[in-house]
């Protein structure tokens, strides 16, 4: 949420020191208006940096697509974890999935 950065003189996230992180987070505006404003803010920054230019590159859209792919992977992780090939960081202990499908080969 980056609402009210200029009028209130609040620092950006990169300028906040590690110790001040808690108080900085407390000062941020978490009202629905503030949330909406920050979403809009972020959208505008991304749009004007990568898309609203004369000669844009593939990066503008590609980053969005990669982000979408990553996000959908995260949402599907629970379902996908049934297809794991080994468990518990131990390559010697295979999962049921790998036993069944590798045995079938």
């Amino acid at each position: 949420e980056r609402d009210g950065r200029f009028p209130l003189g609040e620092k950006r996230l990169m300028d906040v020191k590690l110790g001040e992180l808690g108080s900085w987070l407390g000062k941020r505006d978490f009202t629905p208006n503030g949330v909406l404003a920050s979403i809009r803010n972020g959208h505008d920054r991304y749009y004007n940096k990568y898309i609203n230019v004369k000669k844009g590159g593939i990066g503008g859209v590609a980053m969005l697509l990669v982000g979408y792919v990553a996000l959908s992977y995260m949402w599907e992780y629970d379902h996908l974890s049934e297809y794991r090939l080994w468990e518990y960081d131990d390559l010697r202990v295979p999962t049921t999935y790998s036993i069944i499908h590798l045995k079938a080969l």
Partner: protein
Amino acid sequence: MGTLNSTLKFYMPVLTIVPTIKSACLPRLVQLSHLHTSPNSQAPVPALPEKGGKTRHGIIPEEIFQLLYPKTGVTGPYMLGAGLLTYILSKEIYIINHETFAAACMGTVIIYGVRKFGPDVAAFADKLNEEKVQKAQEVKDLAMTSLAQAVLDEKKEQWRAEGRQMLFDAKRNNVAMLLETNRRERVHMVTNEVKKRLDYQIALQTLHRRMEQEHMVNWVEKNVVTSITPQQEKTSIAKCITDLKVLAKVQQAKATVAI
């Protein structure tokens, strides 16, 4: 790939909503959109930037590389990427399944397509944009010329309006002339009427005098004629005869002298 503005039409409805909300809530933030947020702004809209934010290999923003350069040099982010990849694969945070192979095939095709056809599509999109800009420019130029022409016409009309004074003078002269003519006509009429009346009076007087004269003459003649008695008539006739005889004698005498 070049500009994708023409293909990102789904952004346009959002963009139309954004300024209205923005002008209601946000203070004016300078580095944001190129639309005027307050109704009082007089400055011209700044031009679009030529190139967007740089990305390495299309998906990683250049800022990451710049961030890590002082500490790790040029290969830093790549090592970070390799390490992350190894971690993800070994801990099975990314699970290799049938979709991995599909993703790899699609990725290869996409990258090949982009590498091969990118510049052509970019040129085509740029050409489309050029045409749009040119059309807008034509409209603007046309508007400018028509407005300049309108300004000239207005100035001409103002110059014409100054000439109205001369028109008014001419009209005033006309009116004065009409009045003068009218006055003179009436004066003439008055003179004629007065003269006619005076002439009538004069004629009347001469008539009177003439009639009196004639009447008097007739009366005198009549009286004289009636006063001539017969006696007077005889004596006058005898005298006339004797006068005639004398005259004849004189004439004869003259005639014999002449011969």
